[in-house]
């Protein structure tokens, strides 16, 4: 009804809606091929079975769809973890923090972002035991304030420079662990030459870094010495600083720092990296453990796409820039379009050099428009499609743009199994608590019906929910009793000792090489070197970019925008809950120094803008953010007025839809300017 995005909807029956969806899919498939169908998946409302899974399986059976690669949360950290260690399994069990002599929380705020339920508590216990904890962050976060002994504020996007200067101090003062480097790593000399300035005549001294990072050279020196001397020490490198332009470099630099101090594979140490620890999250679709390590010639390659393979990508050559010689990442190397380039892909299509002309979007488990960069371009792109279907519980900004909104139920209205997000030895069984409310249905129920309308004759989805769950959990041998898990609502896996990443490698290297191409930790990564891309150097390097503090555009837009997670919601989920809105009203954080220059007082209504968009929300003038940076917590819902000014305060109205060679999303690399809003009346946004 009405034009797309007007928000005028008409209630129709399930049968009518699913007929329409099936007919559109068939029509587009027939006219343009399967690659014209874009699957837009997300992690919302997801268990092992429900959420995106049944939709993907169903669409595989009709010939597949276009999908994209890259995860905004962690793509930089993932790339760096794979390049350095060949695996995502780089984290230690949390209880091992008590064995550290020093804990560094780098851009890491577990008090708000959780990182497994017990993390903050273990950190508090460590601090109470007298273990020193340091937080490095542009924001005086809850973690910095409550869990840390010391807060070191840093200019956003300059973390790599700080890490490299710390390496400089350690190497030039001979505090690195040369035995460890010799035994377990390759390429140290190349990194050393860059750090000491032998490569480019610029020694990466603390003085060099001070100017860039706004951390004093003395602080950098002290931190470097403390970290190198107090062994074992845990450097926990959060993903936020990797959500920047060239965020891979930050993660690589952190991994290398852990490496050159020999803090790997030992109790109390930490490897940084992707930081997954105990984990049995075998890929749901393959049902088998996806081992890390190099691909070998005798690795089985199926002749035909299996149920878990998307036929559209099947057999395609890997992306040149991907680490395609390694197993165990999350991205199929043969997907072509990066998620942060998909608006361009939709708008420009084959003529613009993209592999396909996308005609429809099939969206499940995500408020994608809101949660991906450059919302204004997103609106344009989505409006240009022939058809959009979305599965939702709420009329989100993304749902507003759909042709058909299908009410999918929640985790409380169906059975499912959940696996701890980052890895911990337990499973959760989500017993159905109530029948589906109103006319909503589960993803599985919907796909069962839709499969018939799509003329799929036989499907795994024909099986009852419980039977599919048993099938999906069967490969996980650590679930000793499905029935016990279902009865108790959880299953705790017995482990002999807390997980320490790379313990096997360090204890017996001959038997257990690292799962990299060289079998060692790659300070210098040959696989990256093959790409021969100066923006993706084989050793970690500090790189500037066109929305950095020192870029020409910083004269026009002088404030660096941070878009971290907020404690009162999960991404955009729960933003629409009034109880939670009360906790911390949405506002842009700005330091008094920057506020007073602009005549902004606490509580004023301000406009935050750049070339991509403009939003209008109240200002929180606070000492808790470094001068030169402002913070709009991501996840607030896009709500444009008639002039396109976002009154909802959706951070992605200002972020940029580009990506780094390793895939990092520059969510914390946007420059903005702030001014008092024209009327400065808060009623405007209420």
């Amino acid at each position, binding site marked *: 009804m009405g034009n797309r995005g007007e928000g005028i909807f008409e209630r129709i029956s399930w049968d009518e809606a699913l007929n329409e969806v099936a007919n559109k899919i068939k029509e587009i498939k027939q006219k343009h091929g399967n690659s014209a169908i874009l699957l837009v998946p997300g992690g919302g409302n997801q268990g092992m079975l429900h959420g995106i899974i049944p939709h993907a399986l169903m669409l595989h059976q009709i010939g597949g769809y276009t999908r994209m690669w890259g995860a905004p949360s962690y793509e930089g950290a993932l790339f760096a973890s794979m390049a350095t260690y060949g695996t995502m399994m780089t984290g230690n069990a949390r209880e091992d923090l008590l064995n550290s002599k020093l804990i560094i929380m780098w851009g890491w705020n577990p008090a*708000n972002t959780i990182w497994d339920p017990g993390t903050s508590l273990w950190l508090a216990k460590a601090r109470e035991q007298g273990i020193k904890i340091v937080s490095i962050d542009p924001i*005086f976060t809850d973690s910095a304030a409550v869990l840390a002994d010391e807060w070191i504020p840093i200019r956003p996007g300059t973390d790599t420079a700080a890490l490299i200067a710390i390496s400089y101090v350690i190497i030039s003062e001979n505090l690195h662990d040369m035995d460890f480097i010799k035994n377990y790593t390759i390429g140290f000399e190349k990194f050393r030459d860059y750090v000491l300035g032998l490569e480019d005549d610029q020694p990466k001294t603390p003085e060099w870094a001070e100017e860039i990072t706004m951390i004093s050279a003395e602080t950098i020196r002290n931190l470097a010495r403390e970290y190198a001397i107090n062994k074992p020490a845990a450097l926990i490198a959060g993903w936020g600083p990797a959500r920047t332009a060239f965020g891979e470099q930050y993660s690589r630099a952190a991994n290398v720092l852990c490496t050159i101090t020999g803090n790997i594979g030992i109790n109390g140490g930490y490897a940084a990296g992707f930081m997954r620890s105990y984990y049995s999250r075998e890929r749901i679709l393959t049902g088998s453990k996806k081992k890390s390590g190099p691909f070998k010639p005798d690795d089985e390659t199926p002749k035909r796409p299996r149920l878990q393979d998307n036929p559209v990508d099947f057999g395609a050559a890997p992306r040149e820039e991907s680490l395609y010689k390694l197993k165990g990442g999350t991205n199929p190397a043969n997907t072509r379009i990066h998620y942060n380039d998909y608006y361009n892909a939709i708008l420009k299509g084959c003529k613009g050099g993209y592999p396909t002309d996308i005609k429809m979007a099939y969206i499940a488990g995500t408020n994608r428009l809101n949660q991906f960069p450059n919302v204004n371009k997103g609106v344009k792109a989505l409006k240009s499609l022939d058809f959009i279907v979305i599965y939702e519980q709420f009329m989100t900004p993304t749902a507003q743009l759909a042709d058909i909104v299908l009410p999918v139920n929640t985790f409380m209205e169906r059975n499912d199994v959940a696996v701890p997000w980052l890895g911990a030895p337990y499973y959760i069984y989500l017993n159905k608590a109530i029948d589906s409310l109103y006319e909503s249905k589960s993803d599985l129920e919907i796909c069962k019906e839709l499969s018939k309308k799509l003329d799929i004759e036989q499907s795994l989805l024909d099986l009852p929910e419980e039977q599919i769950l048993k099938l999906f959990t069967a490969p996980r041998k650590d679930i000793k009793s499905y029935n016990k898990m279902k009865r108790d609502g959880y299953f705790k896996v017995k482990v002999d000792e807390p997980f320490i990443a790379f313990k096997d490698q360090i204890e017996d290297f001959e038997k257990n090489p690292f799962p990299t191409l060289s079998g060692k930790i790659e300070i210098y990564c040959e696989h990256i070197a093959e790409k021969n891309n100066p923006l993706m150097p084989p050793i970690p390097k500090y790189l500037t970019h066109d929305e950095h503090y020192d870029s020409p555009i910083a004269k026009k837009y002088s404030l660096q925008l941070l878009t971290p997670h907020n404690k009162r919601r999960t991404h955009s989920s729960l933003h629409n809950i009034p109880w939670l809105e009360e906790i911390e009203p949405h506002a842009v954080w700005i*330091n008094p120094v920057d506020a007073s220059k602009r005549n902004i007082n606490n509580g004023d209504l301000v406009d935050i803008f750049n070339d991509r968009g403009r939003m209008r929300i109240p200002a929180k003038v606070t*000492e808790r953010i470094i001068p030169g940076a402002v913070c709009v917590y991501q996840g607030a819902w896009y709500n444009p007025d008639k002039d396109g000014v976002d009154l909802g305060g959706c951070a992605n109205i200002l972020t940029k839809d580009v990506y780094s060679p390793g895939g990092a999303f520059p969510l914390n690399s946007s420059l903005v300017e702030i001014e008092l809003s024209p009327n400065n009346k808060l009623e405007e946004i209420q």
Partner: protein
Amino acid sequence: MNQMGFYFDQTRCIGCYTCSVACKDWHNIPEKVNWRQIKVLEDGKFPNLYLAYLSSSCYHCKEPPCIKVCPVGAIKKREKDGIVIVESSKCLGNEECDSKCLKACPYDIPQFGPERGGKMQKCDFCLERLEKGQQTICVEACPMFALDAGPLDELKDKYGDVVEAEGFKYFEKFKPSILHKPKLKNLD
């Protein structure tokens, strides 16, 4: 009387609001009413900063000032455990009596809600749960084990007898039933 009370470890509180939201959820409290409130305490100049939270609910004072000022006797203190309870149905409402209890309480605990004539409501120490031998919902919910509740004497044995915290002043004349581990300000 076996006075019941709370303990709050301010050094552990990460400001997650779980206690407050769990309370709202359990007691089904409407918007803008909070039986358990969180105060955000920020101080200092960049980069020497202090941030702490104070989680507070009714302190079930030994000498509750609210009881004395209530014109209709809607607030009572239980003999056996000292829990202060309010009979909301008796309450005249925030406008008719001018919120006398709220004005008398130094901790701003009594809650009326935003609507006109709202009746007073507040923490009842999870009486229903207490009778079943269960812990209060805020204590159960705290992921940091920063809250505890029980007979005040037992809490003193466990946690010592510090009563004040940042953002909280102990009034001898009311004797609030609370123990604290305060988060000290060390701004240089």
